[in-house]
């Protein structure tokens, strides 16, 4: 394609990407490096239905003048990124210097919001992603081998967890694992411990969230793999059968290589989705046990005093995190692509 043709061909997409992806990201980056002005405080007398008290309030006239002079706020560079709510460089250094052992260091680290969020997020990603792929593949293979007229209805029901709105799905499971819910009660009965509560234990809450993550995303992997199986060349399968390959060998040496590009695709999507784990934490009311970067953004913007700069910094860190996670998969894809050319 000529460069000029390519340019005109690409321009509408490029323009949309600039407008809807590049500019918002740029705006978030700018926001994360600015904070509101120093508040000009006044002590005034406030009277409420109960009594009059001396209290502090913001001097609006002085603040308005500051805002007019510098509408973006104070430029603080990377300060927000390095403060306690984010990378907490100072606190980590202190913990490193004062901790006698690795375990003391990690326990000090897990007390900081960012590292606490990352510890859950990473465990979530690296358990849910492989399990979703394995389970999705197993379901796809099973559905592919059942009687053709039954497939439609089986596919419909297998897809349901993915169709349900994530928050609703999480709430359904949340009430089932309640100590008076069907699953929570069953577990108490099986463990013989009437005070067992999934919601009160951090470990069990993590397990519940991970099971929810797998339950919700497995149908997505399944439907992709199932579509891939429909393009499997029958002659290859027959050749393998004639050569005496067992069922396992056929899956391992014929089906899996055929589905490999799809596995990469599902891995990419799952890494991105799981890094931004959010709905189950809200649905399970699990803030006390597990947080994530997306939850931190939600928390910053949900309080009575909104912290836009903090939320912006967390968003930029999320983008960087996703980029780091995806790099190995992308490098591999690039090598495969180069190999083929």
């Amino acid at each position, binding site marked *: 394609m000529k460069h000029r043709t390519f340019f005109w061909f690409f321009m509408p997409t490029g323009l949309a990407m600039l407008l809807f992806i590049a500019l918002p990201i740029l705006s978030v980056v700018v926001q994360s490096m600015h904070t509101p002005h120093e*508040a000009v405080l006044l002590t005034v007398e*406030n009277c409420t239905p109960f009594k009059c008290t001396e209290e502090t309030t913001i001097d609006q006239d002085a603040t*308005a003048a500051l805002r007019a002079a510098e509408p973006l706020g104070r430029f603080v560079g990377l300060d927000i990124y390095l403060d*306690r709510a984010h990378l907490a460089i100072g606190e980590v250094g202190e913990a490193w210097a004062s901790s006698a052992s690795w375990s003391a260091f990690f326990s000090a680290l897990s*007390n900081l919001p960012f590292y606490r969020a990352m510890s859950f997020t990473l465990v979530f990603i690296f358990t849910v992603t492989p399990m979703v792929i394995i389970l999705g593949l197993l379901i796809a293979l099973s559905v592919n081998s059942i009687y053709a007229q039954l497939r439609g209805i089986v596919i419909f029901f297998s897809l349901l967890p993915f169709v349900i709105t994530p928050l609703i799905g999480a709430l359904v499971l949340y009430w089932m694992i309640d100590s008076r819910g069907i699953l929570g009660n069953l577990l108490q009965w099986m463990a013989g411990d009437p005070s067992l509560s999934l919601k009160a234990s951090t470990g069990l809450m993590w397990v519940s969230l991970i099971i929810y993550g797998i339950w919700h995303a497995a149908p997505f992997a399944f439907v992709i793999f199932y579509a891939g199986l429909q393009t499997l060349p029958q002659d290859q399968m027959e050749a393998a059968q004639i050569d005496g390959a067992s069922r396992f060998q056929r899956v391992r040496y014929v089906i899996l290589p055929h589905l490999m590009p799809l596995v990469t695709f599902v891995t990419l999507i799952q890494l991105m989705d799981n890094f931004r784990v959010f709905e189950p934490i809200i649905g399970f009311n699990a803030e006390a046990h597990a947080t994530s970067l997306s939850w931190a953004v939600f928390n910053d913007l949900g309080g009575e*005093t909104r*912290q836009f700069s903090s939320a912006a910094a967390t968003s930029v860190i999320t983008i960087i995190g996703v980029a780091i996670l995806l790099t190995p998969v992308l490098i591999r894809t690039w090598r495969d692509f180069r190999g083929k050319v």
Partner: protein
Amino acid sequence: MFVKKLALAGVMTVLAGSSAMACGIDARVSIVGNEFPAIQTVGAGAQECSGAEVTTNLTADHQKINVPGMQGNPAEYTSAIIANSSIVALMNEDVIRPLDDLVAKHGKHLKKNQLVTINGKVMAVAFMANAQHLVYRADVLEQIGVEPPKTYEDMLAAAKMIRDKGIMPNPVGGAYKAGWNLAQEFNNMFLGMGGSHFKSGSAAPNVNSEAGVKALNMMKSLSEYMNPDFLTHDSNATNAEFRAGNVAIMNMWGSRAATLVTADGVPQEVVDGFAIAGPMTAGGGSTPASTLWWDGWTVAKNVSDAEAEATFVAMTHAIRPEILADGDVATQAVWLIDGYKPTPAAVGVFAAAEANTIPYPMLPYMGLLHTALGNELADFMQGKESAEQALADVEAAYTAAAKEKGFL
């Protein structure tokens, strides 16, 4: 469309005619606020006004939309219904206007204590009061032979007796959900223990103190008599436990107490045993471990004077003394309106006000401390760290946020 409007105007006229005082306005009124019954009444009252359009957006998410909805010029909302905690966000962003001139012109029958003044200017008109106080099961306390607890120490003793007698395994209820609720319970206990949130005259935090540690230890002791899932229970879930007969004593909002046992399917013994009393004290202090709240309305800054006046007229109409003639309305809240007579459901809030309960602090940086408390105290409640460590974490988290917002 015209016919519809005409019909609507007709209905409005009938409605306005039937009330004691007609309400005519000539500019748009648009209200945003929370959705509990008393506020629904106020919203409907404002809509009785005729002459121009009155719209309401009453939702539990009102705090997320009121500031953005009033920052534009002209503002989308001409009035926000708020409480003493949430007026701070509107003050911080300078989106509400002083009401002194409008009070002089149209607010003759408002009582002086309804006018919330900041730096001498009326910024809001309060219409109801609220507080958390004791809600208990009289039948259960009778069974163990104790009086309703006046202190949290008595509450613990009663809880132990109820559990030991095998009446209920987890007799104490509390809205201890990690986040806003847990922080609010800490605020109550902390003020009851004689703490103050900030170093005097500054935005520097002051929770990592003896009062803070005592407050946390009391909360931990109470949580041992709660449903093990207490960190996921907000006030709705706590009320559900009470309704189900699983809880005998709890600290609960006055605004929710009135309707607590009117839901369907509440067992008869819960309905019969339901009783309320004033807030408890803690640690030998005399100040109740609770906070006082008011709900009121404001008028947006970025609207025309005509719209502001129409809003003031409609909102004043909505909280006129005549609305109390309706028995249901009278029980919906502890109204601050002239002529209100306390109903039995109001004794808790009244006792709180009489016992000099401290109002929830109206400070520009209180919201940040509340958020930090909500995020950092759960570790202590789960036994993962000491009270001192948890409070140090709160102060560190708050300091980071307050630096970002320019308060420190």
